[in-house]
């Protein structure tokens, strides 16, 4: 049984949205854009290039429900274990939009809020259908509070390329075409991330651990031994240049070396 009225929790969530949006604006917004990256398996590159749009993820196991999962350009290495083809685009951002920081207090408030929803909460806590229940609750939370972006720490890691304490991943909401009570979205292509272009090719191979928490990188240890190599500080600007050239009609991509 929750210890305080739902309205009080929801008031605190709304306040947290204001705080989070300020943090998000300061950290990731450049004038009115958030530059983002997504890495996808090379076998999907051809279909990406035909539409140049990112897709809405709608599989129940995703961290914050249905949406477009991307990384800010600020953390260009952070999700490259998910695929060798890096695509880049931008999310328009105005002061009317809301972000939610899903760390610390943000996480505590979410955990408090879900306890009011006996249907999914029961299945989440007591059955093997937790993924389905989690997805329903995460989607409902983001829809109820009109959250455009949740930013959260990585929940799958690699010791060389992911820094869970400083990196943040984003899920961008797109509920277009979903009725008010629809529990989720379809994996359709979204227009929320604008002017997407293929900008990078990853020269590294990863292997997922049995528990799906950790990815081992396979080329870097062979090439460089056990020492962790410093990341290329120019990668962000290289990706920006590649993007500008792509928009201007050039064909080149950045090779991200192991």
């Amino acid at each position, binding site marked *: 049984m929750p210890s305080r009225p739902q309205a009080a929790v929801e008031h605190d969530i709304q306040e947290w949205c204001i705080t989070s949006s300020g943090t998000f604006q300061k950290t990731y917004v450049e004038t009115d854009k958030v530059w983002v990256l997504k890495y996808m398996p090379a076998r999907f590159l051809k279909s990406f290039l035909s539409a140049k749009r990112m897709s809405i993820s709608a599989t129940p196991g995703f961290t914050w429900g249905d949406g477009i999962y991307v990384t800010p350009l600020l953390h260009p290495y952070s999700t490259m274990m998910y695929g060798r083809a890096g695509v880049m685009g931008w999310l328009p951002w105005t002061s009317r939009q809301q972000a939610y920081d899903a760390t610390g207090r943000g996480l505590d408030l979410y955990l408090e809020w879900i306890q009011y929803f006996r249907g999914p909460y029961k299945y989440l806590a007591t059955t093997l259908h937790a993924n389905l229940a989690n997805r329903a609750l995460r989607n409902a939370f983001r829809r109820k509070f009109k959250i455009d972006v949740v930013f959260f720490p990585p929940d799958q890691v690699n010791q060389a390329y992911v820094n869970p304490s400083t990196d943040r991943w984003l899920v961008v909401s797109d509920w277009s075409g979903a009725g008010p009570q*629809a529990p989720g979205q379809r994996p359709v292509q979204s227009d929320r991330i604008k002017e997407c272009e293929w900008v990078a090719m990853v020269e590294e191979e990863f292997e997922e651990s049995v528990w799906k928490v950790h990815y081992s990188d396979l080329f870097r240890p062979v090439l460089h031994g056990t020492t962790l190599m410093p990341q290329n500080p120019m990668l962000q600007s290289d990706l920006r240049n590649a993007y500008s050239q792509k928009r201007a009609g050039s064909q080149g991509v950045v090779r991200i070396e192991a």
Partner: protein
Amino acid sequence: MPDLYTSLTARYIEEHFRGVSPAASDVALEWMELQLAASCETGADERYLLEQYLGLTNDELQALPPPVHAWFLERWALAGPGTDDPEGVAQLGERIATMYLLAGPGIHQAAAVAALLAFDQKREQGPSHATRIWDLVTRIVPVEAHATTLAPLIEALLDFVYLTAENGAVLRALGDIARRDAHTRYALELMRERIAMVGEEREGPVARLVATFEQ
């Protein structure tokens, strides 16, 4: 299962919901979405699949695992009835209400309720399609199991009241259920419990609804 395409889709959904990593499942489902969109001209698109699913025999439906039911029922909640013919909508609504019972307890029951609420969006008069579940349960389930069988319906509607910003249609459905509950009192009891749990004040949406039935 007579329809191979539907059977393969069901297996595909189950496999990808349960197996490998979410990222791999996601790209697989995305691929399926592209195939469905591309199949539009051949007639084997999403609407075809959804109708084939409801057309399966009860034995076939009971053999399907919960993630498959969740996928199909959620698609119904996204797609709506797809027809304006009242008789056609009624038949689909009746079958979705049956799914609530056939698929057994689980989160997919909330998806069945969501699908029926999506059917309400074009409805201008008459009770909510969600009442079909109530009517079905009270008609075919033994009296001693009514309360437990109906609880997920009422809980799902209450969840939707507090989960969604636009809750007018849900409150109307809950009101229709409460009217049917005048003698049984399964719903009103759960509504009172929920009011206490969320700390809703007298002017809150569910508190006002309950008050109308207590006068």
